[in-house]
């Protein structure tokens, strides 16, 4: 990776990365993807998040759903671990709690394929600064 040599370069880089991300999320883009984040701080991993991430990655590709599954840090819902955030292109991100394999399968079939909400949705209970 090339070094970033000035603030302007850093700003360009940020804008470039931001637009790449929003392109993924654009419902009109043929290369759009379902973006899934799995909360994987120590506590999430301890309650089984890693196997959920592997399961989602494998199943989504098996079922031919264009998607990116990434790990992320603590979402703060310790009581409902493992938690995942699913963002369908052009829609608000939804957080699901208590995700085991059965639940993950249901989320793929119901929410990701058909857009129907399943049980276990955690309402976002905070505002952030941007």
């Amino acid at each position, binding site marked *: 990776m090339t070094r970033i040599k000035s603030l302007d370069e850093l700003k360009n880089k940020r804008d470039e990365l931001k637009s790449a991300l929003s392109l993924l999320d654009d419902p009109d883009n043929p290369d759009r993807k379902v973006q899934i984040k799995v909360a994987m701080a120590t506590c999430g991993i301890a309650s089984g998040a890693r196997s959920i991430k592997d399961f989602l990655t494998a199943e989504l590709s098996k079922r031919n759903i264009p998607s990116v599954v990434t790990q992320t840090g603590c979402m703060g*819902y310790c009581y409902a671990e493992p938690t995942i955030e699913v963002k369908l292109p052009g829609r608000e991100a939804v957080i699901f709690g208590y995700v085991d394999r059965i639940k993950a399968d249901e989320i793929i079939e119901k929410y990701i394929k058909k857009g129907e909400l399943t049980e276990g949705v955690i309402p976002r*209970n905070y505002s952030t600064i941007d």
Partner: protein
Amino acid sequence: MEKQITQQGQLRIALRNCGMLDPENIAESIARDAYQALGKVLKELSPQECINILKQSGLRGRGGAGFPTGLKWEIASKSQSDQKYVVCNADEGDPGAFMDRSILEGDPHSVLEAMAICGYCIGADKGLIYIRAEYPLAIKRLRIAIDQAMEYGLLGKNILGSGFNFEIKLRYGAGAFVCGEETALIHSMEGKRGEPTNKPPFPATSGFMKKPTNVNNVETFANIAPIILKGPDWFSSIGTKNSKGTKVFALAGKINNVGLIEVPMGTSLREIIYEIGGGIKEDKKFKAVQTGGPSGGCLTEKHLDTPIDYENLIEAGSMMGSGGMIVMDENDCMVSVAKFYLDFIVGESCGKCTPCRVGNKRLYEILEKITQGKGVMKDLEKLKNLSYIIKDTALCGLGQTSPNPVLSTLENFYDEYYEHVVEKKCRAGHCKNLFHYVINEELCVGCAACKRCCPVHAITGDKRMPHYIDSNICIRCGECIEKCSFDAISIQLEPKILV
């Protein structure tokens, strides 16, 4: 002005990126404005201008004591030396606290960026993160983050073409609680015993390797970048008169929504427990909240509507601490809670000064005596006097605050102490010497389920006849009460010695 944002519940500043991005991929952090504040500081601000922004913002140390961060940086910047250091205190040791770990695991770049900004402001080119070895994932993610930031030229030599150099190294702690105290932390990093020394000299004049050192907590650092980017007025508009911004709390204990939360200063306990936390488990009655860990105290029902900030917590006999919040219900015995913290302190006291090493041990012994039902009224007085002596004479912050759990429970739950001592009763049914199990003869069908599970064979009785528990043998493990399908076994709050 004072309560403007509290209605909205949580506001995430320090946790802004936690759960939003992949901590092992710097590109995602950059897309979410990481290092923009560093770029702005290096290009547009002088060190003093940057320090002034922090001073105006009113940001105070999130490690617990609440020292104004801008002032701390200013003192370090004015120290004259050929070499200075920036230290990040990631030695999070309070029982039940996991704020710093979550930030480091979820958004390591926010801390690295702020450390570089601090380096620029105080004139340091080296940063050290003191992190406990029990946090292997946080260590791994920090290492990846540092490597990636070096590769991108966001740390290292000539950052963003400014001529400013800054590198960050990790130092591992072995998990000693006292090493969260900054002088002990510095000694531990130097390879010496993790023992505190008298202040002054403060680390800002003579710290790591006798050089001026600025030590800040993880959460404090995580607040820096947004303040630079959004301005001090934005930050100081959040919170109360003397405590600005937000605070991260780790909600634990008998609460429905155990979790990591960030609320504006001035939010009441009631909002935190009943709205964000979803109330007490199994709808039991709220008894107390322990804040500030072993250095803090208990807040009770009468404090439920107190706006939480540094001053109000101190006034209520507790302290902000690093942000652990342990919720307790009617089944928790407050004398045992105090004993638990003292047990922790006795194990963690470094032993250097007598009041802490010996005094806390004696406090623990008195509490042990009371929970065993052997306490006398004089013990309560002794507890109080000894607590004040330890507070006044201990060397470092650990000892000076270690009697707080005792003093605060004595103040708020004197009835419970009194009951333990005089009536030999533990109303929570927690102290094993102060209650016993009894079988209700009318409900018992003589199925012998309890008899079979009793590990010490304290239960006797013939088949299909009411059984009997011998309290002198019973160890109060509670197995039988769980096994009984007829609710025939109950707790009787009378001491063992009277049986």
